[in-house]
């Protein structure tokens, strides 16, 4: 391969890794919530959005990008706790249908609240100067440090979650609760407190992901739903309840999706007129992760790493 196209491929691989890390941050929370609590939470994307908006607005007002991070965490975390106490708590005993409907209602509510308070125009925050200018990773390969930071942060979170789930008592209880909720309660553990902690953790991750994704993709109403579908695919492919699965599947799907979008239209241009190739290329690329999920589910119906760590 020519060095130029090699550079392009590496660049897109890194982009894919970064997108994959974002998916992982969202999927980790979602897989825990579904795996431990048995709740399908469609409103997870709304927490993503709340974090993005809160952080972006504060960062924009103060001119300080870094300030946005704790703000996003607090906003998403607080919203998550409120949602858990008011709505999710009542859905533990209900079936999936009711959960889908109720959390779908939450999506509508959150989207409209944001529209009411902030308006329909997307908001922006600029990447700090120090992180914006591309650095040379390899001869000829320039990459923005901001994205590298996201990748690093995501991998750190993955490590942290792994340690939390596998090496701490809370992690033990989370894993135990995933297999037998009633027994954990019968041994004296307040499982509802555990649920609140898990939900809150998921909310923090979502809020963080939302804020740091802002400079790369727009902060606008409905941003949650766009990424939510992909997140669900990651959760299912990785195996419900598995953090390891969320990590592996997230990165895999992130890379596949990015590479397809980057290179498929170009490949198709060789066989059809440009505008058609572009449209069809993007169309098939969008299908990519779903096709992958269908394939995985047909071979491993419970996902890659079902009910584990």
């Amino acid at each position, binding site marked *: 391969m020519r060095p130029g196209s090699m550079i392009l491929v590496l660049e897109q691989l890194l982009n894919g890794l970064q997108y994959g890390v974002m998916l992982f941050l969202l999927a980790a929370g979602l897989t825990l919530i579904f795996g431990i609590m048995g709740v399908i939470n469609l409103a997870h994307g709304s927490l993503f959005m709340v974090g993005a908006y809160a952080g972006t607005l504060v960062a924009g007002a103060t001119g300080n990008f870094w300030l946005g991070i704790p703000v996003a965490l607090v906003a998403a975390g607080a919203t998550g706790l409120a949602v858990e106490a008011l709505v999710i708590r009542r859905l533990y005993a209900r079936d*999936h249908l*009711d959960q889908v409907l109720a959390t779908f209602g*939450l999506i509508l509510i959150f989207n409209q609240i944001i529209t009411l308070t902030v308006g329909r125009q997307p908001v922006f925050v600029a990447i700090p100067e120090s992180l914006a200018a591309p650095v040379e990773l390899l001869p000829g390969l320039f990459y923005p440090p901001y994205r590298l930071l996201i990748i690093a942060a995501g991998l750190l979170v993955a490590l942290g979650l792994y340690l939390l789930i596998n090496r701490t008592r809370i992690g033990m209880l989370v894993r135990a609760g995933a297999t037998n909720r009633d027994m954990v309660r019968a041994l004296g553990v307040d499982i509802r407190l555990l649920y609140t902690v898990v939900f809150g953790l998921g909310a923090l991750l979502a809020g963080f992901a939302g804020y740091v994704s802002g400079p790369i993709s727009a902060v606008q109403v409905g941003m949650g739903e766009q990424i939510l579908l992909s997140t669900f*695919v990651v959760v*299912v492919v990785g195996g419900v309840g598995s953090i390891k699965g969320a990590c592996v599947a997230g990165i895999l799907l992130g890379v596949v999706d990015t590479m397809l979008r980057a290179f498929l239209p170009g490949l198709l241009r060789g066989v059809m007129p440009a505008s058609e190739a572009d449209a069809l290329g993007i*169309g098939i690329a*969008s299908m990519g992760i*779903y096709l992958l999920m269908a394939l995985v589910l047909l071979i491993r*119906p419970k996902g890659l790493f079902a009910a584990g760590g």
Partner: protein
Amino acid sequence: MPSPDARNLARRIGLAVLVVALLAVPMFADSSSLSLVTRILIYSIAAASLNFVLGYGGMISLGHAAFFGIGGYVVGMLFVHHADATPLMGFIPGSNQLLVTVPAAVVVSGLLALIIGALSLRTGGVQFIMITLAFAQMIFFFFVSLKAYGGEDGIIVRRTNEFLGLNMRDRVTLYYVMLGFWAVFMLALWRVVHSSFGTVLRGMKQNERRMAALGYAPYRYKLYAFVLSGMGAGLSGALMANFLRFASPDMLHWTKSAALMTMVILGGVGSFLGPIWGTAAYLVLETWLAAQTEYWQLWLGLILLAVVLGTRGGINAGMARLAALMMRGRG
């Protein structure tokens, strides 16, 4: 809990009111209300189809928009090829005849349901929900990328398909045509639900293992149900494309699946008339709320939350409870 008698009474009263009201609608309704009722009728076919697999069969499909949308797109694509007189894929002639396009739509959506169902039913639980969603998304992205058929803009069907020489431009005629299709569909659905097939299906929802032990292969029964359901949704889509004179990619989007599911749940899952009430409630609410405020979705969301958290069994159960109360008051 409402007694079976109360439930039966509620059902019969509801049915009688429904039939009379439906026939009389054009006499009392203005054009926008007539349009609303027509849309309710058409969507309720899709909702009832979804309810068939969801309520009676216990399969949570988040991908029914695919069948609904493809029904619409078959009508649209046949129209495009009729309008420019070239055959589809080189050998299928276009058509603007309702009696051609509607069966075609039903067959195509049935085939699609066969493929999707055959693959998806090998999984279960949340995986099944996701895989049906995935397939629907794939179809959505595929059609949006087809520039030849409108891409993101969809297909405008200039004229509603012709049917028995009637004047399909007249709103009232169109309404009665749709009502006719609706009635035929509902009768057919009633027969299926109350047939031995329907009974077996309901048995499977309750206890699959037992039904299997009795000799009924779960996979096959569920697949048949899924295909029938897909055909119903396709019928709905075809009628909708004719009514709106537009086949839009929105019809394939997952939010349409979510809307259909909302209609089913609002009305009460697993009841026969439930989907009709649910569709009516959803569309009326949507229309009325949208007229009140720009932020109507906020209210819709709040109402959804209230319905789910506050009630069990949706409108149908609510009506049965009301009937029970009334009966107690009378005696």
